[in-house]
């Protein structure tokens, strides 16, 4: 697989696991008000699985000795996570506390 595809898949995998973690994050739900509170929190075991999924590309890329994609995944996942939080932050729940 080409390095670019490897990086894209790795970042998408981490981003895919970030999404439920971010949407149903405890602190974020409390801050967002009642609408978000209606969603159930993620059970701790599920949360652990999701974090494992977030970090999974790291050891896989290490095993493949794909050093370039490994560093790019680290940087790309951080940038993608930041972008995800910015986008989710734009959503203003209709029942927000303020």
């Amino acid at each position: 697989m080409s390095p670019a595809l490897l990086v894209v898949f790795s970042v998408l995998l981490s981003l895919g696991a970030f999404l439920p973690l971010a949407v149903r994050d405890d602190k974020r739900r409390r801050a967002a008000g009642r609408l978000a509170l209606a969603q159930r929190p993620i059970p701790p075991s599920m949360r652990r699985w999701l974090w494992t999924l977030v970090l999974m590309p790291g050891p896989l890329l290490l095993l493949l000795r794909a050093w370039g994609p490994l560093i790019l995944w680290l940087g790309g996942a951080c940038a993608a996570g930041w972008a995800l939080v910015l986008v989710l932050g734009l959503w203003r729940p209709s029942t927000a506390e303020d």
Partner: protein
Amino acid sequence: MKRLLAIHGWSAVGLGLLLYAVIVTGVASVFTDEIADWSAPLAGVPERQMPAHLDAPLRETLATVPAEFHDDLVAYPLAGGRLLAYFHKDDTDAEGRSITRGVEVDIDPRSSTVMARREGSDEEIDRERSSVGLAHFFVDLHVRLHLPNPWGLLLTGVLGLAMLVAAISGFLIHRHLLRELFTLRWYRERLLRARDAHVIAGTWNLPFAFVLAFTGSFFSFASVVGIPVMAMSAFNGDEEAMMEAVYGAAPSGVDPRPAPLGDLDRMLADARQRSAAEPYYFTVAHWGRSDAMVTVTMWPAAHQVLGRTFRYQGTSGELLGEKPSIGLRASLGGALYGMMAPLHFGNFAGGLSKAVWFALGAASAYVTLTGLALWTERRRAERGWRWLARAVVWVGFGLPMALAAAPYGFFPAFASGAPVETPMFTAFFIACGVSLLASLRLRSLETLRRGLLGMIALLLAGLPVLRMMSGGPGWDEALRSAQVAVLGMDLGLWVAAGLCAWRAWPWRASASPLDEAALRLGRR
């Protein structure tokens, strides 16, 4: 905790605006090759790459170069696909500093003819190398803030350390790092929003900020402090002996008898085949002598971060072996040293790694600016801090405006064949002056911010037009010859101009913490 917060704040506020300047120009410098290809493209040359046949043109050029400069040659692809070849020797200037002196040529890969020729010391030649003038303007601003050596490097080294202190202290004072990883409350009160935006960007960017600050400080201090101190303490001040010990002396010994150099094209082809990558640059030591040696450094192959370096016996073209970045045997220290450059420049995987480094660099700039805005917002009751708030808006938006203005000096000068340095600086300082005047005259910081953003949008939008009007290729020609940098930069500039125009829109409600801080202070 209060002390840590004070260290975090003051380390950033003390040098924050200069640090912001270094980061913003660093973000632009990620695309330094693309900026050079975009600003000085060659018609019909698709991309920057080492030409397959350069042995003949280099031999023809060598015949025109004084014999004293045959000692060393370094060659690499330059802006728009030109091949740069610098024949030189080590020398000292009037003040006893180590320099190089020689003849440098740009070779057109289409016709193998010499396009430009420069002679003199490395500093003199560097000033005349106009094809990369625009790219070097950004890089020099990033590396040394255009200050003379060693002061510029020392200052940027200190700025790197300040960034390191701010990153580490920020990590220590933020106790709920993971718990607040996804908490961004745009819809809450202004101070909380500003704090969230700063913390979130800082948290996600923390590993990268640490790496950038460390490697940046390393590069700044290595040449002005590290090398002289090491040479002084272990080599009685002999820097040349130290460099030979660190980087590895020539293995073939000294043999000054005349002998013709082997086929360079064959050696480069061999290095290509062994590494499955393209040559980054190569050097020839003692061309025309029996002890000639050719060293070829490659770009990293797919999946790799470090490129390989091969050494060839110059006359026979026989491979002598692979050369680690430090010393003669591979070591962990050498590998770590080798990692410094790719980790700082983000150029190890082409456009993909550059895009990631650009995004993370932009996050660092955002963290610096929002941190300064947050600091001044919290102290808005004190008169003295209002001036810093004004300076934050001036530098925060005036610097990008001045950077966008610099090409307006470059293109007309480059098109007419005149030196580009003075016009670029003139355009840059005019823009700095205009933004300073606006900062002093406009009462409302919100109006100032929007005005500067509007100016950035106008300047960026005009750049592709200016490039074409100055003799650069149109889009059809760029498409035909696959000049990706030209098309990509033009489109990227227009997208950036659109984003700035959107942020500057007069009837758009303020949304970001920076907008809010400016609005609040502007109403006072």
